């Protein structure tokens, strides 16, 4: 073997050695689970017995015969579109507000950030209590001023807006990220815009937004992923509002009221861990995977990736 060939081989091995932590992580935490999920989606598997090949039966069942799939998909898409949008808009709005406040900004930052620290179960329980149509203070106030009193978590038309309100209440994480981005926008660009006679909206539209667009995209992409994994809050809200909290051997089916709080991750859990149907659960997991890929790819393509105005 020539010296050049030996050098090349050593170089390749060195490269592989440096890459190996990532390669191992990729293989163990990405490639293997993905391949397994595809494999089990074609099998009958209950977690105890040997998997049996089933072809596309699980796929047919989920798409044609499983009555919870389409409502869960619709709810998940609704939440991705509405909840993510609301969180980003409110996060940016609150970020703008606290960066402009001259006095007491620290207090406002703390007040807006604190809800984000509340554990999801506790926060959801608090919201269900506040929005209880029978005894909750929110409806009492609405009623006292003559406004309609929605059923919130007990009404299929209002349960997702109520969940959105809960998500917007905990927007402190986005507020901090947007604050950092807003404070990073070069001041001279605002000064130049002001000299050119730009209005407040024009300064926001043509100076602020282009500078923070990578952060907006980051907020949207992570928001979409988080919403695709949305599990705890709708489950707890549905469970508490329905009155079926278990304890006497009753099993709770998520989605109360009227399947309106069902999300795809709940189905993965319900099918895989409550019905012992790993195959169908894997089908739903793959649908989630495909959706997340599609959303992320679409956003990256449309917004030019993570490039800001200065890139």
């Amino acid at each position, binding site marked *: 073997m020539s010296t050049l060939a030996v050098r090349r081989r050593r170089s390749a091995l060195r490269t592989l050695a440096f890459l190996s932590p990532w390669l191992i992580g990729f293989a163990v*935490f*990405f490639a*293997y*689970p*993905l391949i*397994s*999920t595809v494999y*089990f989606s074609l099998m009958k598997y*209950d*977690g*105890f*017995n040997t998997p049996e090949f089933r072809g596309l039966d*699980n796929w047919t*069942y989920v798409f044609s*015969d499983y*009555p919870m799939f389409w409502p869960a998909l619709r709810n998940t898409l609704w939440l991705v579109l509405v909840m993510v949008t609301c969180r980003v808009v409110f996060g940016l709005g609150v970020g703008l507000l606290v960066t402009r406040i001259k006095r007491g900004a620290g207090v406002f930052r703390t007040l807006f950030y604190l809800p984000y620290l509340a554990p999801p179960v506790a926060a959801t329980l608090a919201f269900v209590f506040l929005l*209880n*149509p*029978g*005894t909750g203070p929110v409806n009492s106030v609405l009623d006292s001023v003559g406004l309609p009193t929605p*059923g919130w978590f*007990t009404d299929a038309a209002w349960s997702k807006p109520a969940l959105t309100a809960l998500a917007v209440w905990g927007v402190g994480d986005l507020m901090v990220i947007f604050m950092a981005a807003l404070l990073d926008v070069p001041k001279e660009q605002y000064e130049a815009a002001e000299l050119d006679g730009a209005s407040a909206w024009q300064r926001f539209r043509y100076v602020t937004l282009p500078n923070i667009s990578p952060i907006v995209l980051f907020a949207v*992409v992570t928001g979409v*992923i988080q919403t*695709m*994994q949305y599990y705890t809050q709708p489950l707890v809200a549905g469970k508490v*509002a*329905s*009155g*079926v*909290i278990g*304890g*006497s*051997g*009753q*099993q709770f*089916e998520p989605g109360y009221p*009227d399947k309106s709080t069902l999300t795809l991750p709940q189905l*993965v859990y319900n099918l895989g*861990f*409550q*019905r*012992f*149907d*790993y195959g*169908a659960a*894997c089908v739903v*997991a793959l649908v*989630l*995977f495909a959706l*997340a*890929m599609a959303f*992320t*790819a679409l956003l*990256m*393509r449309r917004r*030019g*990736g*993570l*490039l800001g105005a200065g890139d």
Partner: protein
Amino acid sequence: MPRFTRNAACVLTASLALLATACTGSSESGATDDPNAETTLTFWHGWSAPAEVKAVEENIARFEKAHPNIKVKVVGNINDDKLNQALRAGGSNGPDVVSSFTTSNVGKFCSSGAFVDLKPFIEKSKLDLDALIPKPMLDYTQFEGTRCALPLLGDAYGLYYNKDAFEEAGIKAPPKTWSEFAKVAKKLTKPKGDSYEQLGFMPTYHGYETVVSHYMSQWDHAYFDADGKSNIAEDPAFAEMFTYQKKLVDDLGGFARLEKYRNTFGDEWGAEHPFHTGQVAMQLDGEWRLGMAKDAGLDFEIGTAPLPVADDEVDEYGKGFLSGTIVGIAPASKKQNAAWELVKYLTTDTESVVAFSNAIHNVPSTFEALKSPDLKTDPEFRTFLDIAQHPESTTAPNAVNGATYQLTLQDFGYQYESGKAKDLKAGLEKTAEQIDRDIEQAK
């Protein structure tokens, strides 16, 4: 980095968060351990209230005294989800003896092998279960001939009523038929604006224990036909029950009004339960309510009775719905013979069953314990003991996919009681098809 590569990397990173790893457990069977050797078992149970946990520990202490070579590590507050995950994962730190409140999951536990088949142990111990345990309890702890569990006390469902409210309304005795029940419920109802000062009975399927299966026990019915297909559209009992319940909902004020009132109720397991607070005058509930109601310090007298029956089934008055805690052995346990000693003791030893029943106010699950002079009974509790022994008392049959068929039927119940589903016959037919399809998928 080129934009495509960067974007692709971002997409892959984003997607990574969504992937779940596929874990596989192992189900081993075959007991080779020596039950007389020194060993430590792990017992998982679902009780969480301090008094219940104390009762379990006392029961285990009695077992350890009787079996000095076996120590038991007790882990409480385990629900079915935690149990399922542990049974799948296996491993040396998992449980040896497991229990569940969800009787309707026995079909899943037995058919999947999540719980060990107890037949070899029962035969080795020469236990005649038919002579030991009431038939409904034997039925709900096995599936299609595989006995993977035994009953660890039982639950019987009956009617609780507020004797003071009955007296005030001039009602002399608890109703025996559903027709009488509807009249009594209306008589006890005191409207107040668009709500209630007192509701006779909360009939909706979200009214805690007023679920479809508990109602259905009071009609002669069969969920499945001889071929194992759903029978709910064919058996007229189901249509009768749904029709009756819907009329009761309408007669007591309508679904929307009742739901709004239900939202003022306290937690089912807390002191503010609507029966305790006087918000409802009658309640369908299990025998455990008696102890809870007394602990809540009520300012009215409680009465108990069997639930009413269909008008043409008066001769069966006294029956009710039965379920209970089940106990079995984890397949990954390496100490299955020792585990069997614990299961056998908990489920068949009269002293253990009676003491545990006295402590947690559940129905004893053996004939000997039911007639034991040590069993503490008062007239209210006696009602539930009688229901448990009534020959027509039933439980929901087990299915390969556990409680899924009950949840599917319950879901239709929500649609029907709320008025979203109008055509009962078509709804039951569609629900039956769904139940069959779900079972087919699980086979």
